[in-house]
């Protein structure tokens, strides 16, 4: 059961080996992985939309889509069909090439990241030894896609949204990468498989002080990276219509949507991988553990969306530069302290408490330093 998908793939490769020369087997192996991911991505996206609508609806004390299929399970298919047959509009003064290229350039990195996600034991499509770096690098390409979409649409709201989005993404990328560094220090490898394997026997990093903090920072930055609420300034409909994808409709719009949901999934999956032990877990198959943890995090994202108001631009930037970045830097130091105090054991009281104290103190200090300016209570002498 645990190795179900691995066995299927091995069977397919073995089948091709019997018929074709050996080099075709390699290609088949690659193709199987690609096809699996290429199918998995849209599938995840489709049902994420349904889950989001359902969850948010429940949180808002309503039911959500329930007309198409049992419990509305076919709703995503209906939406997909609607998107496909919608008119494809290109604004007259748009930079047409960029306008058409942008959705693809945004989806491609989102899909590429799936390659390094360890869905289960032996279920990493490409076990790169620079996996985490790959993740960071590929997800940063998305900014250029957003630029292209914003600029190609020739719409001032698009440009505004694009500028906002890019400013936000390059700002949050830094604390995000910094919050990964402690994990790399602890594991000593950039490979995602190695990271997950280092968290065996319940040694999930989230149970350490630095791991917990890193997890929170990474997840928050991830939410900001994929422009989700409460960091969705780039597409704040009350301010700039829909931001960089204002001018998009039909399937191109669906691609943006797909990229966003796939990013949400990959961020959750990466958080799971880095801090929540990945596919590690008892009894259940490893891939099921991965999906359970990932969807748990996705649920938190939906929860954010349903409950938190949108941030202001300055608050957004202040959070990244004045709070998360310093805290993630302190976190690296805390990890080093933990590393030397713990002496190869996962949990010792000293190794637990000293970094904890450091982090709590830093947290408190940063909160103090970031205390927003509160104006004096104004007195209106002429009123009374």
């Amino acid at each position, binding site marked *: 059961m645990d190795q179900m998908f691995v066995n299927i793939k091995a069977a397919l490769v073995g089948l091709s080996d019997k018929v074709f*020369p*050996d080099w075709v087997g390699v290609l088949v192996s690659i193709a199987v992985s690609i096809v699996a991911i290429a199918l998995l991505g849209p599938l995840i996206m489709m049902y994420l939309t349904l889950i989001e609508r359902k969850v948010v609806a429940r949180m808002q004390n309503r039911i959500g889509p329930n007309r198409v299929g049992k419990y509305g399970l076919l709703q995503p298919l209906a939406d997909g069909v609607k998107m496909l047959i919608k008119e494809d509009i290109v604004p007259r003064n748009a*930079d047409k090439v960029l306008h058409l290229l942008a959705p693809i350039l945004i989806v491609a990195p989102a899909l590429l990241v799936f390659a390094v996600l360890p869905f289960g034991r032996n279920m990493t499509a490409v076990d790169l030894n620079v996996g985490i770096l790959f993740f*960071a690098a*590929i997800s940063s390409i998305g900014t*250029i896609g957003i630029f*292209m979409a914003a*600029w190609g649409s020739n719409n001032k709201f698009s*440009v505004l949204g694009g500028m906002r989005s890019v400013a936000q993404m390059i700002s949050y990328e830094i604390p995000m990468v910094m919050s990964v560094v402690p994990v790399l220090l602890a594991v000593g*490898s950039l490979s995602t498989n190695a990271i997950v394997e280092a968290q065996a026997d319940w040694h999930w990093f989230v149970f350490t002080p630095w791991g917990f903090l890193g997890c929170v920072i990474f997840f928050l930055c991830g939410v900001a990276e994929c422009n989700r609420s409460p960091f969705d300034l780039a597409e704040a409909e009350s301010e700039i219509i829909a931001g960089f994808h204002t001018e998009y409709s039909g399937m191109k719009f669906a691609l943006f949507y797909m990229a966003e949901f796939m990013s949400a999934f990959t961020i959750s999956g990466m958080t799971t991988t880095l801090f929540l032990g990945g596919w590690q877990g008892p009894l259940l198959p490893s891939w099921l553990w991965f999906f359970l943890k990932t969807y748990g995090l996705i649920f938190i994202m939906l929860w954010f969306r349903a409950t938190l108001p949108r941030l202001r631009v300055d608050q957004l930037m202040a959070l990244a530069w004045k709070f998360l970045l310093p805290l993630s830097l302190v976190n690296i130091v805390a990890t080093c302290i933990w590393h030397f105090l713990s002496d190869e054991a996962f949990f010792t009281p000293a190794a637990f408490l000293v970094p904890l104290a450091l982090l709590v103190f830093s947290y408190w200090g940063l909160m103090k330093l970031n205390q927003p300016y509160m104006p004096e209570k104004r007195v209106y002498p002429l009123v009374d």
Partner: protein
Amino acid sequence: MPQLEFLIKCGVYGLMGLGIIAAVGAVLLPNLFHAGLALAFVLVTIAGIFMSVGAEFLGMVQILLYVGGVMTLIIYTIMLTGRLGAKDVRAQNRQGIFAAIAAGFFVCWIGPLILKTGAWPQRESDSAPPLLSVEDLGMSLMTEYVFPFEVLGVLLFAVLIGAIVIARQDRPS
């Protein structure tokens, strides 16, 4: 597996070709935004070439820093400095012909020189390439190359401050 090797060779040559085409675009495209995107494409192809020669880490750094960082900065600046759609503004100055002659001469002279030189150190591709792990890179960065590394750190710090100071809007006094 020579067939696979052929495929990869084809891929690499293809990347090179695309890279050169994109580079020409980056230099000549009148629209700066397009030029920037072309440059981004060139950088990605170069990252691919890096990975094809076994420098995976460098390839990733190339994408992360160049495509994700420098290119974003450049495109951002293009947007900030305006005149985006001003296509009637000449992109090139008047010395293009001289520059082309000089560069052409340069290529036509060095290129044959490279091809003529037969004594390049060759290492067989299948004979245990000294693949460098990230750990090796990190270790040498902290030992052999620690001085340039530190100097680079200072430089980046100075750049950080300098860029802020230069680009900062003057406070209205």
